[in-house]
């Protein structure tokens, strides 16, 4: 029906939807569309993001491999949805909300097995979060706090992690 991607080709066997994004941040505005493959209704998968910097989309219509969208200030937009695309997020940590503090991260370092984030929050303090990268997304395996010495830089050398905090270098 829609183009070379077989998932979109047959409306009889595959359903497709272009749904208005459900923004993970309740305080953020939506400026994009997401294309969700619902060929397996029990396991819908995010297939593509469409974004043009314009505005939230109110209504959409499919015409062949094109998606027509009315976009308030942006007027009419036409998207080519024949190919999937866009970076799709996997959260290592849940995004913040009004009730849940987020994790501001300033730096990263990684070796073959682990990923480290330097985090710094003026309220809750700073530290390093460690993740196992054998999974996707990486899973938490440890952390240590530097208290209110906020971490802003990281570097790895062999088995040692160097942590640049505001007032000191820690190994």
């Amino acid at each position, binding site marked *: 029906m829609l183009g070379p991607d077989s998932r979109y080709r047959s409306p009889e066997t595959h359903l497709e939807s272009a749904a208005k994004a459900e923004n993970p*941040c*309740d*305080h*953020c*505005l*939506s*400026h*994009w569309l997401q294309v969700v493959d619902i060929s397996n209704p029990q396991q819908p998968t995010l297939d*593509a*993001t*469409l*974004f043009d*910097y*314009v505005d*939230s989309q109110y209504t959409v219509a499919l015409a062949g491999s094109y998606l027509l969208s009315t976009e*308030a*200030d*942006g*007027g009419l*937009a036409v*998207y*080519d*949805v024949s190919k*999937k695309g866009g*970076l*799709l*997020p*996997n*959260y*290592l*940590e849940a*995004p*913040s909300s*009004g009730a*849940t503090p*987020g*994790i*501001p*991260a*300033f*730096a*990263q370092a*990684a070796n073959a097995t682990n*990923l480290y*984030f330097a985090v710094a*929050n*003026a309220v809750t303090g700073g530290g390093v979060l460690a993740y196992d990268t054998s999974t*996707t*997304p990486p899973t938490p395996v440890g952390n240590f706090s530097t208290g209110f010495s*906020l971490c*802003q*830089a990281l*570097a790895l*050398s062999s*088995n*040692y992690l*160097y942590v*640049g905090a505001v007032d000191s*270098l820690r*190994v």
Partner: protein
Amino acid sequence: MATSGTWLFAGTVDDRLLVYDISQPTTPSQKVSLNLPGLPIEFAVSGNLLLVADSTAGLLIYNVTTPAAPVLLSQTTPSTSVTDVAVDGNLVLLAAWDGGLVVVDFTNPAAPQMVGQAKLDTIDPYAAYQSFLLNKAATVTVLNKIAFVGVYNADTNDPPENGNGMIYGFDYSEPSEPRLVYLGANGVIADAILTMRSFGGRLFAGGTSTLIEFDSSQPRNVVNLFFPPNALRPPLNPARSPRTARRSPAGLRQPAIGKKFRLPMRRKYDAALR
């Protein structure tokens, strides 16, 4: 910070480059303290070269063949602050704040050449709304010839608008003409993306609110093929636009935690914000 062999290079908030001998890893020994013209924000090592994103002072390139005696080879100032560097061969890609993405050829590190630039505001059809650019290029990483630029959204309004922690992806196969191939992640990270890095073909981002791995197997997104000419657009009147009207409900307000981020964030980007 960055390491090279048994040496560690670190920047300080009082504009210095420190070089440590880490041959005894648990007892780093400081060998050098060098005053820099700007605030060193990020480092990259390429062979015997140390590249420094030195905020308002631009890109500094040091010869660190003798790490205990760095030699400044060049200073490249793209007229905006430089907050991050990523190296790909003889190219260094800069997150250049108001300047967007800047591509520098450092084949001759003593005389690097700025060969390309992609300013972020030129892509925003609503740039005319603002008296200043909201999205600042804060961090950059490269993956498969695409430079992913994470932005710091400098919008002081509440709630934030115009993109939040956006990611721009530029194909720099032709360095003189970086081409936008991805624009997205809007709202996935509120306010700002402060670090983007690729490790082992995987792409990670951290910002003011969360940590994310992005599936980069499909880095290019589908984009708007058609944007109506001015004559066909509705009037640009933010005060009356439906967009603005939707911002007014209390449910759209930025949570208080967002404000708490600003202290450490500004400390890191202090020079850039000056």
